[in-house]
């Protein structure tokens, strides 16, 4: 308080005000740049075909039409792709939360032979790039007969080392006294995991669940390789392949394509907005400590 003489303090305050104004101005411009492509996406999706091609462009559709969404949903079969994607993402999420929390519990609290070695090996696998796995994983799935099946998408990607790490970090903060109390009552490790660890690690489970769900919903390269049959496609595969086909055929099917994009993005943004505090937490733990 006394470290600043008055004129300096006043000067700083003035500088602060100008600086703060500049900060706000830059942030608002940045946020608009981040947001406006989405406005364009939704606006295009709500336009009639002639409006989509209007020059000069218009930001607000007039009249607003739902025909692009209807066309995407029924004619282009996005209803099916939506359900496919929902099924795959939900299955991945359930498996991921269960498996990663079990492994996380063991790595956090149990002492067993080979624990450090196994855990370090898992961390080392983080350096394997996805591109290396593409071909051999495809051949593995081929051998298992999982081509064109949802299981070929779900099982290979339902465990991630990052999520195990996240669960381990969180579970290691749960006081050991609780487990010991249960053990005196004769509880097995499984009961302790089910009755004590799971209920107490809900925030970490939520984070893992969101990351798994979003990751599976976002997946593209792998479903593209595995799901050859049109009826099995996910939203992303449908969007990625149909756009090539229809731009070649019709030139500018952007109303329908943007409606399809909204259908892909909207659930993700919905999940993010409702559960964002878990998101931010997981992101920081995953990035800074990983």
């Amino acid at each position, binding site marked *: 308080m006394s470290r600043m003489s008055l004129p300096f303090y006043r000067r700083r305050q003035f500088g602060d005000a100008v600086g703060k104004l500049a900060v706000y101005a830059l942030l608002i411009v940045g946020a608009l740049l981040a947001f406006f492509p989405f406005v364009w996406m939704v606006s*295009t999706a709500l336009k009639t075909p002639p409006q989509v091609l209007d020059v000069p462009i218009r930001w607000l559709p007039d009249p607003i039409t739902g025909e692009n969404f209807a066309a995407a949903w029924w004619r282009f079969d996005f209803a099916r792709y939506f359900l496919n994607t929902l099924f795959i993402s939900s299955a991945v999420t359930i498996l991921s939360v269960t498996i990663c929390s079990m492994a996380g519990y063991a790595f956090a609290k149990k002492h067993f032979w080979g624990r450090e070695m196994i855990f370090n090996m898992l961390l080392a696998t983080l350096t394997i790039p996805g591109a290396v796995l593409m071909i051999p994983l495809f051949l593995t799935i081929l051998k298992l007969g999982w081509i064109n099946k949802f299981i070929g998408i779900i099982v290979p990607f339902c465990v991630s080392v990052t999520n195990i790490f996240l669960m381990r970090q969180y579970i290691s903060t749960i006081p050991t006294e609780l487990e010991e109390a249960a053990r005196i009552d004769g509880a097995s490790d499984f009961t302790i995991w089910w009755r004590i660890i799971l209920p107490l690690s809900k925030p970490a489970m939520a984070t893992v669940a969101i990351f798994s769900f979003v990751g599976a919903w976002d997946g593209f390269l792998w479903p593209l390789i595995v799901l050859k049959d049109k009826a099995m496609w996910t939203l*992303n595969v449908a969007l*990625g392949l149909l756009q090539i086909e229809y731009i070649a055929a019709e030139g500018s099917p952007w109303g329908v394509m943007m409606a399809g994009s909204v259908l892909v993005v909207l659930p993700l943004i919905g999940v993010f907005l409702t559960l964002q505090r878990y998101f931010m937490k997981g992101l920081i733990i995953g990035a800074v400590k990983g």
Partner: protein
Amino acid sequence: MTMSPTMKPGPLLRRVALAVYREVRFNYWPYLFVLPALAILGAFLLYPALYAFRMSFYDWQALGESEFVGLENYQRFLEMPNVRLAVSNTLYYTALNVPSTLFVSLFVALLLNAEIRARAWFRVLFYLPVISSDVAVALLWKWIYWAGARGLLNNLIGVFGLPPQDWLGDPKLAMPAIVLLTIWKGMGSNVLIFLAGLQSIPPELYEAAMIDGAGVWARFRHVTWPLLRPVTLIVLLLLTIGSLQVFTPVFVMTGGGPANHTLTIAFYIYNLAFGSGLYGFASAVSYLLFAAILGITVIQRRYFSDVVY
């Protein structure tokens, strides 16, 4: 071991025996707990990675017999028609994307770290592109870049009297256009990582620097930047590793075109394997990419060798 003795009544001998039994018996639960994770990671991560290594020494094609060819796939690497192009395109993409995303993310994080209202709202807005699906946003930007007068970007630059460009069809513009999309898409997560790093810097350091008369730049240069090094390393590694594997924007926006000017290594591997069926050669290319990524990780870590994790 952290097992507590039971306090149930009973003959002393029985109690001792029970306690000893509890200490020495084999507890199989930890192994059961890690088994599903290890089985899946082993079968679908470790085994395929090693399998690819073996494949890279074979003339392994989709159809017909595979034949051991030693290092031939690796030797052929530079002779294959588009390999050099794929490598140089990928390096070009990485060289554009990594520094610009790093710079923009750090800048936005610094702005967000100022004492401002509605920080949470800004964070959410900057994070929206990150959460959105790769395919959907690549498609959206393909539409924004649409050639002729109907594209949004051409409309916007038209306001300043600039002629419309064929953003994704022009060999010079296509890659920078893809980079612009990935900066927009990838910025948000790096902003959050930087922000976490910034908020862990003790405010006393800034106060001390201000007493010494340090201005905004001096405070950044001598307090923020040095203390942010560990976080910068992480962002740098994540960005580089991701950039070297870029696939989806290329697939959706250009298909590698125009005239292979956006052909990247990952897209090339995909085409080799699933277009031409050259699994063995594609595996060799994958392993060279793996080696490059490991090499870069090691170099960047060495450069930041003072960073303690």
